[in-house]
């Protein structure tokens, strides 16, 4: 899931302090699960902002409203009437949610209260680890389910760099070398041959916004364009 963390209060204050009434929009999806942008976090931030700005003698009102998912337009419909009296919106969704809000309400400033940090897993309550870089070219089938892109500090695709010390990454020795882990996993599965399959250099230059329309739905949208 998408993992996000809340920005520092001072940073958020700086964004919204010029607006008298701000609606803080939460998200019931990923950012709720990672305890960054759900109903509780909304309530906490509204309180902190109001108290802090009041202390700075700044007139400020905020209210919170959580939608199920900010990344789906039909869940934003209920906001249409609610946003009207507000001067600006503060989103506690991920980067995608912030942009969807901004797109839906182009005449209202929309500010991100969170930093979207990675696609990751939930190790335990409050503990999240990155696992995926959404590179669009998954090689997990060849690396025993360990992503060399996300787990190797250098993103190497064809084995370790020669720098690991005691199986630790030379970039950060708090972290295991991903390729040592890949080797051990493949060895345990009897698939060491996969490690010898050379991967070509990754194409990084295509950074244009991605769009995916599932084949089963292409006719539906093609008809609408006509």
């Amino acid at each position, binding site marked *: 899931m998408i993992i996000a963390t809340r920005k520092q209060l001072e940073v958020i204050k700086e964004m919204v302090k010029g607006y008298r009434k701000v609606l803080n929009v939460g998200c019931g999806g990923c950012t709720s699960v990672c305890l960054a942008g759900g*109903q*509780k976090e909304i309530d906490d931030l509204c309180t902190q902002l109001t108290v802090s700005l009041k202390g700075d003698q700044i007139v400020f009102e905020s209210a919170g409203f959580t939608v*199920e998912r900010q990344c789906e337009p039909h869940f934003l419909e209920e906001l249409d009437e609610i946003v009207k009296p507000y001067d600006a919106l503060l989103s506690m969704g991920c980067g995608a949610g912030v942009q969807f809000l901004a797109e839906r309400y182009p005449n209202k400033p929309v500010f991100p209260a969170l930093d979207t940090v990675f696609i990751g897993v*939930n190790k335990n309550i409050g503990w999240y680890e990155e696992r995926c870089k959404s590179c669009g070219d998954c090689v997990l089938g060849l690396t025993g389910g360990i992503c060399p892109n996300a787990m190797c500090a250098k993103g190497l695709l064809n084995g370790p760099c020669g720098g690991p010390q005691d199986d630790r990454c030379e970039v950060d020795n708090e972290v295991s070398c991903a390729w040592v882990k890949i080797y051990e996993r493949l060895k345990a599965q009897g698939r060491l041959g996969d490690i010898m399959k050379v991967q070509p250099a990754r194409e990084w230059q295509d950074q244009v916004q991605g769009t995916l329309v599932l084949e089963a739905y292409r006719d539906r949208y093609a008809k609408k364009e006509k």
Partner: protein
Amino acid sequence: MPGRGSKSVDTDQIKALLKKNKRSMKLRLAACAGCTLCAESCFLFRKKGKDPQYMPSYKVLNTLGRLYRKNGKVSRAELERMRDLLWKNCMLCERCYCAIGVDLPKMIAFARRILRSQGIEGIYPHSLGAPEGEDG
């Protein structure tokens, strides 16, 4: 709105929300024939030993349906039970379908909204529960 940890229920607020979508929601609730065809479309129902409490129709009828039947006059305990049905028993993955076109996810989302208005929000099974010391 009752705050987090509050024991009270703002019935007027619930009634106002119910009234807002009364026509469309009551039509959907009335349309439910209890055919249980929606059950097979719910992956949680299929994975949880076909426990009827995971059936989309069950979830909707025992949350939103109950709220409309009682015109919002529910106790805090009833809302807490609804929370489990709406969040623990449902991911709002929107995979569920109804043979006659009742919009089940929309009804779940609306019921969740009503509970949030009372300071009640979900326990997410995949996040291993709420932080210690906090309720849900």
